[in-house]
């Protein structure tokens, strides 16, 4: 696999010109993962209905949908859509496709969970979709997980045991894919996005509950992923080797640097003709670069599924505008150690974080997430202006302006911060907050 991977990378690097696209084309595709739910059915029964939905003509004709690792999960996608001439088409398609899935689920007496972690499923040996990659990859992680790692998860009194890589079956995210104008542009977009992720996570944190327990972690999804998938040896940790999840140790110097990192980790699966795709597919960074046909795509993966489609679109356009601003202004990158602190702050505390930022006077300082948001919001608007979608996007980003707390904090508040919650209470709270529809 490694040799095939290196050959395929060499092909990409030697023929960079085929990935060149017009810089002014801003092409975006969205993916969203949802959980299907019914309190009257087992996960396996829901899984059977999910498979039936995936094969039904009602959705397959118009909606690009697929299964995910968890048997109750479903993912839908938009095609790549240009937002250079306006945000309307992306909004329309995204909303339509979600509505389609929602209708089909409701017709089968299922509800849809719009949350980053499905709080109703067990972590240990939770049922997985019956596809080779969904069986082999978590098993590999479970076998090779370092024995000394502490897999009891949570920062409050309650701890949840997360020592099973199948925990990913519980997690839902939405991903923003942006087409890069070249390989170099892709690396630049990826590096800049790492720096932007913490504030986005603070705004969108939405996975605090696991197994009906309050972990106290506003966005637990990626942190639990990091712990359950830590297969590094002590020697590797001592040498400073990072995980293939979350943040890299440093920014990438260029495309080769990125692909070298991807190729260092075990491939687990054997599909030599797909080696590049497999390597990148198992490189679960907050942001990653993908080769899709003749396009270089930068994928933002750090954000959990939001309570509403509108919130996902708001975060998407905030990200697009802020990234554009960063590229146009040739903004200096925040040192990775500061990004690392910001990221952990955001995951633990959401909008209650204190984040490092470079203020309007160019001074590096810490401020509340809300203060940082308004600082960055102005920069995002400037970026959106150059894309040409300022007016629509400003309306779209309105939900963010009102955001004082993260969705997860709002849910915890409605559950009176109880450490362990009855499933029926949790279900009610999720319905009230539109996280279960």
């Amino acid at each position, binding site marked *: 696999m490694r040799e095939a991977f290196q050959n395929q990378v060499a092909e990409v690097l030697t023929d960079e010109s085929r990935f060149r696209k017009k810089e002014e084309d801003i092409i975006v595709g969205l993916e969203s993962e949802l959980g299907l739910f019914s309190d009257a059915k087992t996960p396996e029964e829901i899984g059977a209905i999910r498979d039936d939905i995936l094969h039904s003509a009602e959705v397959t004709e118009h909606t690009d949908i697929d299964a995910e690792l968890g048997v109750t999960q479903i993912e839908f996608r938009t095609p790549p859509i240009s937002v250079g001439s306006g945000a309307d088409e992306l909004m329309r398609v995204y909303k339509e496709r979600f509505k389609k899935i929602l209708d089909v689920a409701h017709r089968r007496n299922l509800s849809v969970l719009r949350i980053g972690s499905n709080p109703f499923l067990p972590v240990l040996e939770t049922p997985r979709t019956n596809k080779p990659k969904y069986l082999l990859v978590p098993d590999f992680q479970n076998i090779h997980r370092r024995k000394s790692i502490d897999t009891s998860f949570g920062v409050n009194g309650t701890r949840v045991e997360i020592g099973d890589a199948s925990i990913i079956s519980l997690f839902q995210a939405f991903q923003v894919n942006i087409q890069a104008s070249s390989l170099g542009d892709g690396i630049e977009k990826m590096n800049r996005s790492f720096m932007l992720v913490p504030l986005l996570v603070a705004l969108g944190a939405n996975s605090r509950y696991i197994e009906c327990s309050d972990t106290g972690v506003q966005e637990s999804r990626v942190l639990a992923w990091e712990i359950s998938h830590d297969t590094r040896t002590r020697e590797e*940790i001592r040498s400073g080797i990072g995980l293939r999840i979350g943040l890299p140790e440093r920014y990438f110097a260029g495309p080769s640097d990125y692909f070298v990192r991807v190729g260092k980790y075990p491939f687990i699966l054997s599909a030599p003709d797909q080696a590049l795709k497999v390597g990148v597919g198992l490189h679960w960074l907050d942001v990653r670069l993908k080769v899709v046909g003749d396009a270089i795509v930068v994928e933002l993966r750090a954000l959990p599924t939001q309570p509403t489609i509108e919130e996902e679109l708001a975060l998407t356009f905030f990200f697009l505008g802020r990234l554009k601003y960063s590229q146009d202004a040739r903004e200096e990158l925040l040192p990775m150690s500061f990004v690392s*602190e910001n990221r952990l702050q955001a995951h633990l505390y959401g909008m209650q974080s204190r984040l490092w930022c470079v203020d309007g006077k160019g001074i590096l300082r810490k401020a509340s997430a809300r203060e940082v948001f308004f600082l960055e919001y102005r920069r995002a608007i400037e970026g959106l202006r150059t894309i040409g979608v300022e007016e629509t996007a400003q309306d779209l980003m309105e939900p963010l302006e009102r955001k004082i707390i993260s969705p997860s904090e709002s849910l915890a508040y409605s559950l009176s911060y109880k450490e362990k919650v009855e499933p029926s209470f949790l279900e009610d709270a999720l319905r009230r907050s539109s996280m279960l529809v």
Partner: protein
Amino acid sequence: MNVLNNFFSQFRFDSARAGSIGIERERFLLSEEGTYAPSSEEFLKILDDGNWTHELSLCQVEDRTRPEQSGLKIKLNLLENDNLGSLAARKLHVSFSEEEAAQENLPLLIYPSPRYREIAASVSSARLSAACRVAGTHIHMGVSNIEEALMLHNALKNHLEVLCELGDHSNGLRLKLYKEMAIRWNPPIYEGAEHFFEIAKQEEFSENPKNCYHLVRISPYGTVECRVFGVTQHVDEIIEWVHTLSLIRKEVISNVE
């Protein structure tokens, strides 16, 4: 009996902090030219942060984390200290060294505090040099009471060799220097509270438990402190040490239950 009570009253055990972890991380300062920088006073003045403090050597500083139960919060504390420290270091044109055993040319300059002056005056120059040349990462584990402290202390003593190896980045030089500095470095197995007191009297730390320099010691903060680990720039490695100690603690607790 009063003497015994007085001795134990110096330890602030707290059941609310049982199992919590606090870390002290010592590091040398280097000038832009790569020489040792005797700049801890200026560094601390610029930083002005309660989580940072001085050490015996004027070339060394130390940061401390708050007691926390969760590895994630400990990691965040370490990152916060690191970033604040690196900003102050940048202003002063110094950086943190990765060394856990300084070279022999380390300037023998002592931080101007009465306690350090007293120490410097009371030991030979060879021991003083050894004391100044070591830097380490000390991990404190909160315990509820003296019984728990003794059990955890003894369990760590039983794992001492493995822990020393795990934390060594200098082919044993740091520990060699530590042993030159602290002749009584080897923690004994305490047979009970009274035995602990007897050892404290014999080794002259009954009046001030901070004068115990065993590689594992029961500290007046109500913790068992493990001083075997050296210096690493990787926060994940410190967290791995924490996990290793927590596993030992878990074993101790489960044996009691």
